[in-house]
């Protein structure tokens, strides 16, 4: 059953076409990998899905509700959460407070007191317990990425959009993150992951959608997608096939 249904969505910035009639779906309970070369429109799609940009055309349905023109906070209240490629913590707050705020709002309303309890749970889940009450500027990139994840999880989403959580991490941190993403999935959360680290995408995704120049060029099982000539061409150009 599909949880998210994207139909013919387009987005232009001035004369630049970022999304050119994207149609795709995310099934309930799956991990969908969204890949494509730089500038193919992956981040724009995430921004449209989470309500930050209004698409110029097309329609987005989430859990049988039309969310096409809803503002971001209403999309969040319906159960879509996202992370940012470059971490954007609330920098006058501690990690605990970041997560607590997210829990107070998100998909369900919670009081300040309830938020305190819940924050501990997500801090523990992401292994940030030791830095829970330190300043944001004392966190490493790795910890900031995990904080992004913890904060998104604290909204108790049904669908989580992960925008390059692995970018900039070293191999052992990547392994740790992949394992964490699997644990998130095990909690019953549907995931859409945008990622450049192909090893991780192949390991995690049940299905992969490839974007190129704002269009979906291929979708299907990971192995099958990666062997597709159109994908190789998109990444490496025409010469890639000769090599």
């Amino acid at each position, binding site marked *: 059953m599909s949880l998210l249904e994207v139909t013919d969505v387009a987005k232009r910035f001035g004369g630049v076409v970022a999304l050119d009639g994207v149609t795709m779906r995310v099934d309930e309970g799956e991990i969908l990998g969204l890949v494509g070369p730089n500038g193919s429109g992956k981040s724009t799609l995430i921004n449209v899905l989470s309500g930050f940009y209004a698409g110029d055309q097309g329609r987005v349905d989430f859990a049988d509700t039309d969310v096409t023109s809803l503002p*971001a906070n209403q999309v969040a209240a319906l159960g879509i959460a996202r992370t940012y490629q470059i971490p954007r913590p609330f920098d006058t707050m501690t990690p605990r407070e970041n997560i607590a*705020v997210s829990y107070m*709002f998100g998909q369900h309303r919670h009081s300040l007191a309830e938020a305190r309890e819940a924050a501990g749970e997500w801090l523990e889940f992401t292994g940030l317990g030791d830095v829970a009450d330190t300043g944001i500027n004392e966190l490493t990139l790795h910890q900031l990425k995990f904080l992004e994840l913890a904060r998104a999880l604290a909204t108790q989403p049904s669908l989580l959009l992960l925008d390059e959580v692995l970018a900039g991490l070293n191999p052992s941190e990547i392994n740790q993150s992949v394992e964490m993403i699997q644990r998130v999935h095990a909690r019953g959360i549907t995931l859409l992951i945008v990622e450049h680290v192909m090893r991780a995408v192949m390991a995690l995704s049940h299905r992969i959608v490839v974007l190129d120049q704002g269009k979906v060029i291929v979708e299907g099982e990971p192995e099958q997608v990666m062997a597709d000539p159109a994908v190789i061409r998109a990444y490496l150009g025409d010469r890639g096939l000769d090599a």
Partner: protein
Amino acid sequence: MNRRRRTLLGFAAVAVILGFFPAVQEALDLPTFYVIFLFTTLFWVAQASSWNILTGFAGYFSFGQGAWYGIGVYAVSVLVGKHGWPFMAALPMAGLLAGVAGLLLGMVVFRLRRLSGEIFALTTLAIAFVLAALARLLPAIDGGTGIFMTGTPLPEFLGDFTTAMYLLTLVFSLLTVMAAYLIQDSRLGWGLFAIRDDEQVADGLGVPVFRYKMTALGANAFFAGLMGGLWSLRLGFVTVDDVFNIRVPLFVILMSVLGGMRHWMGPVVGAVIITTISDRLNSAGLADVSQIIIGALLVILALAVREGVYLRMRDRWVTTAAVFFGALALVTLFDINGSLISDFAYAMVATTLAMLVPSGVWERMRANRGGTGGDGPPETLADDLTEANT
């Protein structure tokens, strides 16, 4: 006892102590001037606290304080001075009109994403100019002649004019500060902090950004207008130039920056320090340089104590208390001058200067003392969150 109940009890205690001050003043035969000084301070406490709800909590820098205050002043002046309303009936209208004006502005500026940042600040500044021009041009409001408010009757049970002014100012400023506290200690407050830090991220996490910003702006304008309405009596003769000038917006900014904009107590502390010092400078005949001195103080503090003096005083409460009461005892003992307010002014300056010791140096001094006998562990906002409602 939980933190909220403790704080509300604190409010009650302050209300009772300050509420009896006019009686004490009369009994001890202290100059009436003390009562006037206190209600002037309370006026600024309310103005700075209400400004901070929007600018400190939600992060929208506003020069609009003068506009909301001015609407309040003129609402009461027109209703009482031109239409013969009883003063107490006109007073709520001051808050309501200013609140509605704030919401109208919010409906326009918060809908347009382009109007954030410095454009928002400039828009709020422009509102005050427009209102000043309107008041000057329209005879129904002012028409350039001014409005006499002297001799306006006040309810008799409040006592003589000065006592009545004092009690009303006390009630309104307590209400304002309490509102700021309750907002900070709630979902609304944390939603506003999130908006201040990164509005787009807050939006994405489900914070109803438009509604929250409207609430903050509405509350700011309402409390500023309410106090403005009351202040029309203090002004006595209300003129456009006296009301719509840069004084109110500038002073609330100075006070909040000095005290700290991230905690509801910041503007309270800042307002008390600045009104006390500026009152002393004025009475010493230094009115001309008082703005320069306060301005210089602000620049130094803004650079050295970015979080404002209040949070530092809380972290270093032992030192704060020691310096404040030590200085107070010294100046009283040596009787440097006869005035009680001057004594407090010296003590406040000494305490504020003690807060200038940078955090790094402070930590090292604390460590050298072996970590004991210091000011206890620093209390952060996280503790507010951790202890809230427990």
